Structures are given as C-alpha cells and as structure tokens.
C-alpha cells in the first residue's frame, strides 16, 4: 500500500497500461471478425455465422487454433532473428497506442487524478513516427531469417514499400503541424475545438488551410505503410505465397497478424487526431443534449440486438446474443450515470471516428484490386510525394501570407 503512496505515477501508469493492453488485444481479435464480416457482406455472403451468435466467438476459435498449431522452424533459419521479428513487430505496433489520448477528462485511479492517456509526450507525433519507422525491421528481419526465397523477396519488397511511403506519410502530416503549431496531440486536438468545420481537414480561416489533400495523401500512404490492399503485393496470396510470413506458423504468425491490425488501429487513431478532431464531437459545444448520445447509441444497439435475439436466433446462439444484448444495455445505462457521462463523451467520439476509419480500411480491401509492385513504387515516389510536398508548400504560404506584407 505504501508503495502506491510513494510511487503514485508509476502505479497509475501500470494500471492504465494493463487496461489498455486488455482492451487493445480484444479489439484486435474482434477486428478480424469485423473485417471478415464486412468483406463477406460486400461479396454477398455472410462470413462467420455459426461459431457463436453471428460468428462472435470466431476470434476465440481462431486464437485457440493458432495456439495449438505445430510451431515449425525452417531448417537453416537464424533462430534468434526468426523469433525476434514477430516480437518486434507486435510490441512496436502496440507501443504506439500508449501515446494516443482518448479523451480530455480527468479521471481518478486509486485516488490519483490522471488523464486518459498513458504518455502525454510533448513531441508525441514525432515519437509515433519514430516507433513506426522501427517497425520496418519486423518485416525485413522476418523475410531474411526464414532462409527461403519467397519470404526474402517478400520481406525486401515489403520493407522497401514501407520506407518509401513513410516519407509521404510524414510530409503529409507536416501541413497539420503548421496549422496546429505543436507536436503534442492534446494541443493539436485543442486547436480543432468548435464544431466539425473546425476540424483540421475542413478548417479555413486565420492561420489554417483545409487539409483535405493532406488527409487524402495521408490515407493513401497509411494504407501502403500498413501493407493492406491495394498495396499488399508483398503478402498477397496469389503472388508470393504469403510473402514475408510464409515460413511462420502458429503463434508467431498470429503475432504478425495482430501486428498488422494494431498498425491499422494506430494509423486510424492518428488520422482522427490529426485531421478529424480526435475526441471532439462534430456538434457545436452549445448543444448540451449531445451528452446523452453515447447512452442513446448504445441503447439503440441493445434494442436492435434484442429484436434480433427474439426473432432470428435459435438455441445456444440465442443465449449468446442475449448476453451481448444485456452487456450493451448495461454499458448504455452506465453512460447515463452523472459521474460517468462527462468522462465517456471524449472516448465515445474518438472510438466512433476510429471505427469509421477502420470500416473504410476494410471497405477498400473488399473493393479494390491490387497494385503491381512497380506501379506501387512509381505511385509512391512520383505522385504521392510531390502532391504532399505541394500541399505542404501551399499550406505554409497560406498561413504566412498575412505576415508577408509586413516587412515590406
């Protein structure tokens, strides 16, 4: 107990890390369910349906499968690097989530007032890019250590693609930095206060320029950076067997899988913070009825799930979906408690926006065909980088234009 009193920040940080880790691992698992469902519906089929109501227990089954598969090591592989690569990929992908602020409120953990972010670093954005740039090693080392042709080629191509698009990613974000004037996430979000037309992607006026092109460049570069369709040639199944993770099985493959989803989540969180106002709501602040929205949204979901349970489900699926309904309704009611209501506003809007971007990611996966590798690299260097540089130039000019005449 006195340990808590002597090191309050350490203990509170450990609690926050534990909670975030738990939430993130659950979200990653259910992101795979979400992706399979959405792609299935785009392709006019159902997707996972039988393993638990609406396939909700499918991630659990997949996790068990990954745990029990045989763990092979290819002959001649460099053992240390072979094991290091997926560890590096997953740990770096999850570490970036420690920098993300989920809301403005100050909550009390173990009597200590604390913010809804694990590490509020002054150069948060720069650090996030630093961690992402080391993430390239996970892919490169996986390709190298597998001691086999396809993974080596896949690893080389994939890491070359990642470092190429990393440049465009960083440049497209600098426009936002010029508008916000700080690298700290909280300050970037605070600058977007107001309603949705104050968000950085639409914001025009004194000291700002709408960052629409910046956002489009960022979205494209981010999809390429995370190796997703249409930029996933290095790991496409019809091209290079499975690219850099061909020789990985069981839990190490699951780690690469989770690392890819974690990178997706990080990139979507970054998009909402930088361009779409983070945890700010799209409605003007004077509309006080909006604080009931989280509860209302959850209760509407619970009502729909109740209808689905009663009408469509049979047998054990009915019981499972009933449990989910009660859970949703319970959280909805929880959001109505006066103590919880102001705290939940920030995370609700943040998670809603992140969920929309994740849906957008999965949507592009289900819709677009794949780029060829030379088309991919040409696009990154010859189109995306010049466009983001021009965006940066124009943003800078527009911001500094009023002050240019003063020295004349």
């Amino acid at each position, binding site marked *: 107990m006195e340990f808590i009193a002597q090191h309050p920040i350490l203990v509170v940080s450990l609690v926050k890390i534990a909670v975030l880790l738990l939430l993130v691992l659950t979200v990653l698992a259910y992101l795979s369910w979400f992706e399979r469902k959405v792609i299935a519906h785009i392709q006019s089929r159902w997707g996972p349906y039988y393993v638990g109501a609406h396939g909700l227990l499918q991630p659990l089954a997949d996790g068990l499968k990954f745990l029990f598969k045989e763990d092979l090591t290819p002959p001649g592989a*460099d053992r*240390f*690097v072979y094991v*290091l690569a997926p560890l590096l990929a997953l740990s770096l992908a999850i570490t970036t989530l420690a920098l993300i602020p989920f809301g403005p409120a100050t909550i009390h953990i173990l009597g200590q007032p604390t913010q809804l972010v694990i590490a509020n*670093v*002054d*150069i948060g954005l*720069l*650090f996030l*890019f*630093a*961690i992402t*740039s*080391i993430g*390239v*090693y996970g892919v*490169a*080392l996986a*390709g*190298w250590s597998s001691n086999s042709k396809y993974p*080596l080629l896949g*690893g*080389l191509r994939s*890491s*070359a693609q990642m*470092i190429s698009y990393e440049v465009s990613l960083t440049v497209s974000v600098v426009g936002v930095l010029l508008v916000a004037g700080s*690298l700290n996430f909280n300050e970037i979000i605070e600058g977007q206060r107001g309603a949705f037309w104050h968000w950085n992607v639409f914001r025009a006026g004194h000291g700002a320029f709408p960052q629409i092109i910046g956002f489009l460049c960022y979205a494209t570069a981010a999809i390429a950076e995370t190796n997703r369709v249409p930029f996933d040639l290095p790991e496409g199944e019809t091209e290079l067997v499975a690219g850099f993770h061909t020789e990985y099985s069981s839990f190490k493959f699951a780690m690469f899988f989770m690392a890819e989803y974690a990178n997706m989540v990080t990139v979507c969180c970054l998009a909402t913070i930088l361009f779409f106002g983070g945890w700010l709501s799209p409605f003007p602040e004077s509309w006080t009825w909006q604080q009931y929205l989280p509860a209302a949204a959850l209760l509407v979901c619970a009502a729909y799930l109740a209808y689905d349970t009663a009408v469509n489900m049979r047998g054990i699926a009915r019981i499972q979906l009933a449990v989910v309904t009660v859970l949703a309704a319970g959280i909805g009611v929880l959001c109505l408690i006066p103590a919880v209501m102001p705290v939940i506003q920030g995370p609700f809007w943040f998670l809603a926006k992140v969920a929309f971007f994740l849906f957008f990611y999965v949507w592009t996966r289900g819709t677009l065909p794949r780029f060829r590798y030379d088309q991919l690299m040409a696009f990154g260097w010859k189109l995306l980088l010049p466009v983001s540089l021009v965006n940066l130039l124009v943003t800078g000019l527009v911001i500094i234009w009023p002050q240019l005449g003063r020295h004349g």
Partner: protein
Amino acid sequence: MSVPFILFFVFAGIAVAGAVLLIVAREPIHSALSLILVMVSLAVLYLLLGAEFIAAVQIIVYAGAIMVLFVFVIMLLNAGVEERTDWSKLAKYAGLPLAGFLLIELAYWLARPAAGMTAALHAARGMGAAPTRALSEMLFRDYLFPFEATSILILIAILGALVLAKGDE
C-alpha cells in the same frame, strides 16, 4: 540510487553491450542488430539529457533509415559468416592492448575537465521549456547556411548512389 542514475547505468550498459556484440558477432546481421540496439539506447540517453528532438531524430533517421539501409545491403549481398583468417601475432598481442589503452586514455581526458558539470534535470536557459521550437529557430536563423548546404549534400549523395547503382548501363 535515484531514478536518473539507474536509467543511465542500465542504458549505458546496454549500449556498451551492444558495441561489444558488434565486435564479437560472427554474422553481419547480428552486428547490425546490435548497432541498432546501441542507437536506441543512445536515444534514451539523449532523452535523459533533455534533448527530446534529437532522440526522436536519432531513432527516425539513424535507427529507422540508415540501419534499414545496412540491413537491406546485408540481405541483398547475402553476407554470411565472416572468413576466419589468422591475425598476425603483432596485431593480436600488441594491437588489442593498444586499442584498449586508447579507450582508457580518451575516457580519462574527457572525464577530467568536465568533473564539475552536472546534468541538472531542470536547467534554466537554452534547453528549457520548448527546446524543439528553440532548436528549429536556431537551425533556420543562425545555421541557415549549413542547413541549405546539407540539403545540397543529400542531393549529391542521392545522385552518387543512383550513378553507382546503375552500373555500366
């Protein structure tokens, strides 16, 4: 033992271990990985010294781009285990002790004049509140010419690498 001391010794130990691993490793890829370890622990030491921006730049540029280039080249050239040739007796018995002596002498002469200075964590002027902003102002005002010169240097390096990579075409 306060926290800065513990952090310093831990990451200094990791840095030295990485450097020793660089020398001792038999495969170039392991040397590259230990060099990355050294760079990351040096970035943490820069954080301890209050240079946040330089720590981030170190990781983004040095550990995240230059070392990726090294790893690429090792993968491309399929560099395997180093050949073991016998060093001359002179190198083994005189070289290593001389190198060690260089090390100790450097350490001694660097440590002496600085004996009184400490890295106080909340120092006053230059590296105070917003070191990134102050650093960038200095970069674009006092050091503008070297800044532009290094951008030309990078352009020359890009051209040189392109010419060398194209070969005899």
